[in-house]
């Protein structure tokens, strides 16, 4: 496969064309907004978290195929997981994208399809945007330990 095809796998393009998690949710208690200043990608995540478990997620991403697909896969993956499990997944994805893990681990399912992005360093932050935003939102929620809507805005250009 040529590198371009490794990034734009069918599975990525499928998530891009019909992103999951589009349905708004009512009982959200974490709202996190992420922004990628150098590209203009924008993401909005709404999460209902209860007893440390992510009950439901809504993802609204305006961005490129990679950021939208990554957000869509996030929506598919995190539901029903604990905060710790989600953090762990985020870490694994980051290490995979940075090339610190050779093979995508089995236990992240579709998300392994993001591995091809690592050959395009400037696009890594597109793949990470949803995850960075989610984790910041959850951490802030955990730190402030209260119910209610929380808005974080992450502007980290993590991979520069």
């Amino acid at each position, binding site marked *: 496969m040529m*590198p*371009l095809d490794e*990034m*734009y796998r069918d599975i990525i*393009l499928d998530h891009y064309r019909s992103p999951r998690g589009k349905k708004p949710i009512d009982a959200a208690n974490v709202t996190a907004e992420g922004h990628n200043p*150098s*590209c*203009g*990608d*924008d993401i909005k995540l709404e999460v209902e978290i209860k007893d440390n478990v992510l009950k439901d997620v809504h993802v609204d991403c*305006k*961005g*490129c*195929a*990679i950021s*939208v697909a990554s957000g869509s896969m996030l929506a598919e993956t995190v539901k029903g997981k604990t905060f710790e499990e989600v953090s762990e997944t985020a870490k694994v994805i980051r290490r995979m994208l940075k090339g610190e893990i050779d093979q995508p681990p089995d236990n992240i399912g579709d998300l392994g399809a993001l591995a091809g992005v690592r050959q*395009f360093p400037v*696009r890594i932050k*597109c793949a990470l945007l949803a995850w960075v935003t989610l984790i910041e939102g959850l951490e802030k929620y955990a730190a402030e330990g209260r119910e209610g809507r929380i808005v974080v805005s992450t502007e980290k250009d993590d991979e520069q």
Partner: protein
Amino acid sequence: MASRASDSPIVTVPDARVLDVERIKADFPILSERINDKRLVYLDNAATSQKPREVINALLEYYRKMNANIHRGLHTLAERATSAYEHTRTHTADFIGGVKPEEIVFTRGTTESINLVAYTWGEQNIGEDDEILVSEMEHHANFVPWFQLAQRKGATIRKLPITVCGHLDLSDIDNLINEKTKLVAVSHMSNVFGTVNPVKDLAQRAHAAGALILTDGAQAAPHMPIDVTDLDVDFYAFSSHKMLGPTGVGVLYAREELYRDMPPFNYGGEMISQVGFDKVTFADLPYKFEGGTPNIADVIAFDAALSYLEKLGMENVHHHETEITRYALDRLSEVKGLEIQGPQDTSERGSAVSFTDKDIHPHDISTYLDYNGIAIRAGHHCAQPLMKFLGKVATARASFYIYNDRADVDALVEALIEMRRYFGV
């Protein structure tokens, strides 16, 4: 790739207005680079231009034969460097219509030039209830400094709106420029739409209302003849790196009277007259605005960039770009799914062409094209207010310069068509 050209680029004989692009290409070493095993088609000129051998050699020459700190030194190297540096100042003054050398201040770029005006003239002249009129198509460099100044001063930013065709909307201009207006901030050429704005007309209106006008020439100075006196602007800012010159050099032109009244910007060596714990006085124009060791080497090499452009002739440069832009607009309009921004009439625009694909995000367009050796830009182009107006987060932009030809446009168009097949849309 073009074959190695002889000495200097010249215009071909039959029609003096037509650039010999083949020879020009050969003057730019980077154009023989291969990108992903394809020939480099560089269409990101609005971000920065490539540099001809003459400019690169000027840098070499400087560091090999005259490197020294300027103005302060009495030795031979310092004298060589000082006189070359001041020569560039005079050359720059000539290039924009023959102003006085002391009306030219060297900065790091357009951004610093505009910030200099905001920190000095702005601090001194903008007060509560004053208005600054800023167009909706400005690059952040000509927006954020005024926004912040207004915040500090309690002044008001008014928006000079734009039309869907990418023009300034002048329908309400008589209200927008009024007795409260202190400054009109407008770009000479938009880096997104390519639109050339009616700066001379706006200058007249501003002056009639007792306001000044600052023109961001970052996209205009590289591409067409500039005469700041004819335009009658008060401030004009542009960047070397977008017009064949090195990075790290910008120009600010201001009328001498304005400079005289403005306080200095960066304080330090070179810009003072006398310094003591009791009192500090400042040097004369333009040194008052060039505190510290300037970017000596790059200013000196910028001279070679100006000479290169003059050899081609700015009229011819402009003519060439009009032609290539016309061709690009025509050919891009053949591509299914593409939406092209900005004026269609090439008499109203320059060579920055923004477009979107209804199915494919600009980042994906850029990555796909890059894989084919074609460098374009995708993003908000530092013009978020304009993007908001368009209702888009990003566009793709191809921008042309003297070394681009129809083959480059063809490569772009063919890749865009191929791309739609690739993404299955």
